[in-house]
């Protein structure tokens, strides 16, 4: 079998894998030599090592990219697990439907979206992606195929949603879409001077807007700590004469020799971005693509971080300690001077996540990219970890490549229950790392 280098989105982790392809949804999982394991791999948008299985096999799922059924009256879509969310949107938006939860990129597969139980800017209303999965088929290495839903085989459903591909292979899924009036959004951008204002603004916004997300200047300190711009939006009516912007895909052709994200570029960008909006409040009409997937316009943007790649730190701080812990996290990051153009703050709502290992829970989530600076960065991460631990928070496996096993196990108390559902043929670098020695 072909051995090939498989990398994840952060470009820090790349490892040779024996590569197998699923060709059709009727294919069975390839038989492996005894002791070997595999991991289903979608479109490689996980940042760290949760989509990798170093020393083992990778089962490529992208060829399972067929639609199976689409009911234009009820908005029920059935498709194979390798279909990209981008393909779904291209199909369903003209018919007046939309995915009820979308992450920050549409270049993820349906299987990947389920396995990481992804969330979007409307988490406070709709919860995670997994909540809108009516049913899915789980193929196990022993050849059994099980249809799972909240009602049918609910334990298998709860293990597979957010299950990081470890419970077997998701071959197809049935999704419930939601009606929209058109592809445009009425967006309001509101500037806030510090993290205190953010909390007030966020709470108010969640009542009246379906989508909310805030960009923050991760370098500002003192009275300006956590200043930024909050975007809040609702789906708007179709404008009869509006022309949809063409899908332009510029690409970063190769990684520059050093990261273009550094102390200087960061300070310039953040200051400029904050002050670019001259008024406190600005209203715009945005096309769905630029609102939901601003980074997808630049293919391979991950290469901007250079050959050493980058880490993302996305954590959630549960409600009781959300305020103090967020302030502490932001102070620590600002003091370190590290960080990225895109630091994101968002409130998670109380809609329960369906998966045993789902990341979203009521509270505040903070996400930042960091160019890989080796030990200096790890020291920063360790101080962030300790703030998170005392606040009872958790890190997002889909974005992680380094969290200590203790932090994972504290943040995901159902991990042992989950491990009963792992397919004997499946494993991942992430899973071995965070359960080692436990």
């Amino acid at each position: 079998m072909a051995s090939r280098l498989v990398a994840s989105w952060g470009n820090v982790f790349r490892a040779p894998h024996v590569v197998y392809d699923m060709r059709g949804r009727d294919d069975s999982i390839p038989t492996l030599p005894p002791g070997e394991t595999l991991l289903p791999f979608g479109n490689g948008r996980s940042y760290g090592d949760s989509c990798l299985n170093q020393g083992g096999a990778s089962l490529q799922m992208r060829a399972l990219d067929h639609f199976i059924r689409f009911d234009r009256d009820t908005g029920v879509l059935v498709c194979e697990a390798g279909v990209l969310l981008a393909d779904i949107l291209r199909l369903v938006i003209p018919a007046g439907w939309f995915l009820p939860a979308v992450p920050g990129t549409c270049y993820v597969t349906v299987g990947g979206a389920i396995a990481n139980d992804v969330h979007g800017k409307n988490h406070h209303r709709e919860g995670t992606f997994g909540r809108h999965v009516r049913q899915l088929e789980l193929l196990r290495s022993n050849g059994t195929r099980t249809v799972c839903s909240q009602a049918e085989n609910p334990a298998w459903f709860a293990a597979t949603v957010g299950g990081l591909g470890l419970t077997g292979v998701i071959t197809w899924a049935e999704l419930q879409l939601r009606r929209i009036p058109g592809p445009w959004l009425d967006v309001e951008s509101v500037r806030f001077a510090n993290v205190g204002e953010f909390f007030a603004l966020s709470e108010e916004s969640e009542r009246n807007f379906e989508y909310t997300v805030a960009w923050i200047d991760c370098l500002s300190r003192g009275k300006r700590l956590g200043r930024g711009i909050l975007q809040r939006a609702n789906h708007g009516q179709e404008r009869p004469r509006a022309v949809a912007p063409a899908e332009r895909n510029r690409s970063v052709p190769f990684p520059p020799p050093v990261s273009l994200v550094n102390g200087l570029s960061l300070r310039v960008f953040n200051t400029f971005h904050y002050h670019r909006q001259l008024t406190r409040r600005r209203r715009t009409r945005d096309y769905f693509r630029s609102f939901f997937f601003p980074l997808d316009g630049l293919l391979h943007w991950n290469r901007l971080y250079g050959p050493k790649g980058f880490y993302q730190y996305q954590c959630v701080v549960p409600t009781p300690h959300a305020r103090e812990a967020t302030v502490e996290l932001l102070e620590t990051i600002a003091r370190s001077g590290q960080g990225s153009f895109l630091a994101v703050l968002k409130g998670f709502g109380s809609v329960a996540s369906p998966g045993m290992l789902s990341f979203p829970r009521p509270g505040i989530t903070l996400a930042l990219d960091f160019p890989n600076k080796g030990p200096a960065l790890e020291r920063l991460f360790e101080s962030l970890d300790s703030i998170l631990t005392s606040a009872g928070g958790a890190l997002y496996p889909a974005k992680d490549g380094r969290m200590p096993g203790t932090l994972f196990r504290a943040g995901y108390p159902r991990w042992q229950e989950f491990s009963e559902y792992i397919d004997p043929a499946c494993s991942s670098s992430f899973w071995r790392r965070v359960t080692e020695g436990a």
Partner: protein
Amino acid sequence: MIIGATSAIAEATARMLAERGDALYLVARNEARLAAIAADLSVRGSPRVGCEALDANDFAAHEAMLARAESFLAGCDSVLIAHGTLSDQKACEGSVELTLQELNTNALSVVALLTRIANGMAQRRAGTIAVISSVAGDRGRGSNYVYGSAKALVTAFLSGLRQRLVKCGVTVVTIKPGFVDSPMTAAFAKGPLWARPERIAAGIVRAIDRHSGTVYLPGFWRPIMWVIRTIPERVFLRLSL
């Protein structure tokens, strides 16, 4: 109508045609795969998708299949022939049977289909026939000449057919893809010359719409193959291509 509809290039082409609302008749060997593709194309917008499992090497079955396609589509205005296998050159060198089988699949079955389809379209004085040949057919190379010679036969056959049918208003399109990143080439290491099937498909649809004669896909293969064809034999013999 698409013959070899489960190939990556054919499927990507079919998706583009479905999205613009064309009715399709799909022919391929693998019935389960065909059914999955047919359902997918219906969802994507094709008003009618028919399919038929057939081995292109079963020449006797061609006529009935073509008749069924004709009646399903109520007259078939475009045909894409896309089936083929990438021959294992080393194995072919040691086996007459295998070599002949590869020539059968990649050349003779195409000729058999083309003869019947061409006569039908000539009679109706309308239609477009597009066939996937290959840059490999432009000059036989030591590493791949069984596949290459089959494609050379197809290319020459199409060239003659085009000349014959142009008078009847029938278009014949020769498609010469370069390296395509598909399941057929899963075992190869990919470099900058490789293209995704979607890109080839867009070129095929464009060529069919424009009634092109011969297209290289992507277009940069035209100058590359010009160079390869013009290398003097003395020099060519020393190259390992």
